[in-house]
């Protein structure tokens, strides 16, 4: 019996959906309902009807539904979460604990205080989603309107990540079709099921399905129903979607990114090498380093001996982390790449004082020291490169070329250096700077990829130059 990875509004006509089998590794693995060509039109109508129902709900009620759902999902003993964990282990090869930790850090962002803070940060007030709110600058009023239907094209690299675009869409009262990835297609439908179980008014506003990457007809049919598209994926996948976006559609893209960590000498002294290493190990090990926010390398202010000392401590910390939270299974291509990399690094370590290598026998973790930042050697799967630099300002020569891909920087610095390096990193392309040890847990408020991902979805309508502007505001929204 294959697990159903799709979710459809109840009661779609029998002709609207086709059942397909989704393969993994050449074997039938999951079953999925995919709308037929006519079915996409019917689904679109249902989603728009579902969206009308969302519009009738105050946004605080939608927040409340998501919060109740997240509360359940934050409990490791919650049945659907346990089932989702097991399915994600099977699909991704992550260990059970690695999936659990991914779920923990992803899902706690969807509690009410986090959601409301996000709306405040991005929109000023969440009430603008319910109707006009006063605007003193306009001497009038303003209102935010989300798209009717959002198509979210998901990836499978981070367990539970599919919840993010679903939540963002619901926050702006949009219906959403989530297209899951074959790498991890099981989470989204379970999460959506919980949302609908919490409040049946969401039932017509949510759909989860899957299609193969070459299924152009289905992509076109799905896009025809969408007013906005949120796409996650590699450069090619994103480019393929971007090319199909129509002028009226909003488009938010989360393409490839990478992250690094920079440590000043003062920071290592103040925090202590072992504690710094423990923090780095958390950053590098969470999501098995598959997320764009996970660092692939750390630049250490100091000489080669200092880099080796940090590397040694990091190796110990990575080992300890792996004992509590194993990596899981690695596919054969990645194992081969690790073997070739390890052989190369082993040779460099015995021939050059500037190199060193530590790794577990089964590549649960790997730490290397090299004299220059070498992105070619960033393999993921908890592989960290440690690089010394005489002065941390010099690290910018390496970081600036990464600019278009730079996401998250764990910056171990304070005082004037925090300011100057922070500004340079921001200008170089970084979208997030945090303390080492906190790289894997960006808040919901963070401007993901440098964008206001909720605000980007909405359209605004202003009332101005009108003597009755305040009348547009609902009584409960009027001041005084």
């Amino acid at each position, binding site marked *: 019996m294959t697990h159903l990875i799709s979710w459809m509004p109840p009661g779609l006509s029998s002709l609207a959906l086709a059942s397909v089998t989704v393969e993994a590794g050449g074997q039938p693995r999951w079953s999925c309902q995919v709308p037929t060509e006519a079915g996409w039109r019917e689904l679109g109508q249902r989603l728009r009807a579902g969206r009308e129902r969302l519009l009738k709900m105050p946004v605080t009620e939608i927040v409340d539904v998501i919060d109740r759902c997240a509360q359940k999902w934050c409990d490791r003993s919650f049945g659907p979460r346990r089932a989702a964990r097991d399915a994600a282990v099977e699909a991704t090869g992550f260990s059970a604990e690695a999936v659990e930790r991914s779920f923990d850090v992803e899902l706690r962002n969807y509690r009410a205080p986090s959601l409301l803070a996000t709306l405040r940060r991005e929109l000023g007030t969440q009430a603008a989603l319910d109707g006009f709110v006063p605007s003193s600058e306009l001497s009038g009023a303003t209102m935010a309107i989300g798209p009717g239907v959002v198509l979210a094209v998901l990836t499978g690299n981070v367990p539970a990540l599919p919840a993010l675009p679903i939540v963002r869409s619901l926050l702006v009262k949009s219906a959403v079709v989530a297209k899951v990835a074959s790498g991890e297609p099981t989470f989204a439908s379970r999460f959506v099921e919980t949302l609908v179980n919490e409040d049946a008014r969401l039932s017509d506003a949510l759909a989860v399905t899957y299609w193969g990457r070459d299924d152009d007809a289905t992509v076109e049919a799905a896009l025809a129903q969408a007013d906005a598209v949120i796409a996650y994926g590699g450069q090619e996948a994103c480019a393929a979607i971007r090319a199909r976006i129509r002028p009226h559609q909003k488009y938010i893209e989360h*393409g490839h990114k990478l992250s690094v960590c920079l440590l000043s000498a003062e920071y290592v002294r103040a925090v202590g090498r072992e504690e710094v290493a423990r923090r780095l190990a958390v950053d590098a090990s969470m999501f098995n380093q598959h997320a764009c926010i996970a660092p692939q390398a750390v630049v250490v202010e100091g000489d080669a001996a200092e880099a080796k000392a940090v590397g040694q401590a990091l190796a110990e910390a990575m080992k300890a982390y792996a004992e509590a939270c194993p990596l899981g299974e690695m596919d*054969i*291509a990645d194992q081969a790449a690790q073997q*070739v990399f390890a052989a190369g690094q082993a040779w460099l370590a015995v*021939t050059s004082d500037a190199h060193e290598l530590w790794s577990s026998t089964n590549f649960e973790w790997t730490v290397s020291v090299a004299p*220059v930042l070498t992105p*070619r050697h960033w393999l993921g799967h908890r592989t960290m490169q440690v690089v010394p630099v005489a002065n941390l300002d010099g690290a910018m020569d390496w970081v600036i070329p*990464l600019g278009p891909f730079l996401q998250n920087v764990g910056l171990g610095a304070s005082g004037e250096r925090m300011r100057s390096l922070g500004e340079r990193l921001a200008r170089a392309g970084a979208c997030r700077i945090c303390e080492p040890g906190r790289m894997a847990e960006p808040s919901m408020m963070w401007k993901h990829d440098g964008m206001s991902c909720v605000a980007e979805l909405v359209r605004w309508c202003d009332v101005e130059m009108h003597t009755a502007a305040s009348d547009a505001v609902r009584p409960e929204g009027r001041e005084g």
Partner: protein
Amino acid sequence: MTISYADPFVGQLFERMGALIEADNGEDDDDELEGSAITLAADLDELARVNLPEIGRYWARTRLGQGLPDAAFRQGRTYLFADEPPARTFRTSGTSGAARGVAHYSRRGLELMRASILAGARRFMLPGLTRPAVIRLVPEETAAPDMVMAHGMELIASSFGDPGTSASVVGSSGLDLKVLSSRLDHAVAEERPVLMIGGSFAFVHACEAFEARGQSWRLPAGSRIVDAGGFKGRSRSVGASQLHQWFERYFGVPQTQCVNLFGMTELASQLYDAAPNDEAEPLSYDEVDPEGRRPKGGRATIRPIVRDASTMAPISRGRGLLEVRDLAILDRPHVVLTGDWGLASKRGVAVVGRVTRGERRGCSLTLDALAGKEARA
């Protein structure tokens, strides 16, 4: 205390290696020859261990006898004779921002390499051919003095080819299709069989050009095409089956007369397709990959080894990491971990692509995107 180049032990190794190359009949079941090869390999390991202490430390960190990775040729020392300056140095082309690999040869080492190249050519390229027109899709050696393929193919041409009709057809601005066409025309007119040799990608370029021009030849019977390597570092690849169809279509050379050669700058010998894919004994699905890449046989001088990607234990069937033991290498550790995938089967090992990180989908960057952006020392 290192072993001097002038040490009799080195002289004896040189003699034994030369004798092995000479005696190597290309068969896989000569126990006596293989016994000599194993003893020789142990002595070469000993030389490497003494003259390059790093190799012992490398084995301690990995596993005894594991081949040197390509990274070793890009950085650090692999040449074993501090008291004997290299007579010749070849360099890799370098890919995606990485430094070029270097392989130094002593006078003896160069002699062994030449002997091994000629022995391989005699066995796999020349059967049925007498003084063919050797047409090389690689530059003249003088134009590319550090390119091992230019050296090896010119050596084959000068040793076995007809002097009047053999030539390189690569000039300063690349493959010269006009010269290639006229050489082929000439061979057809003279009814002289042709041995075309060159890099796989050069053949793709030639075939595509001839398709566009509507040109084709029926080369004289017995003509043979030997394409070398694959498509490492190229923007695209063409399957072996496709290449063989083109060879038949544009040159009239049947696939039974087509051979793929695997060589590396880091190696002195080359591996050749073990068996043509003929109808008498067709290759089965576990011997050949979907692109038609065929198994390459081992012989006493050079032997492909496939290691399990997880455990690194040698395996006799299936996919794993390709390592090559080359007993024509005197000047460096003689086993190389190539960085390629090997598909082991009863008839040999098909070389089925470079090892790269598995496909990763999602927001985490696959680093091909950063090619060329890599920080340099």
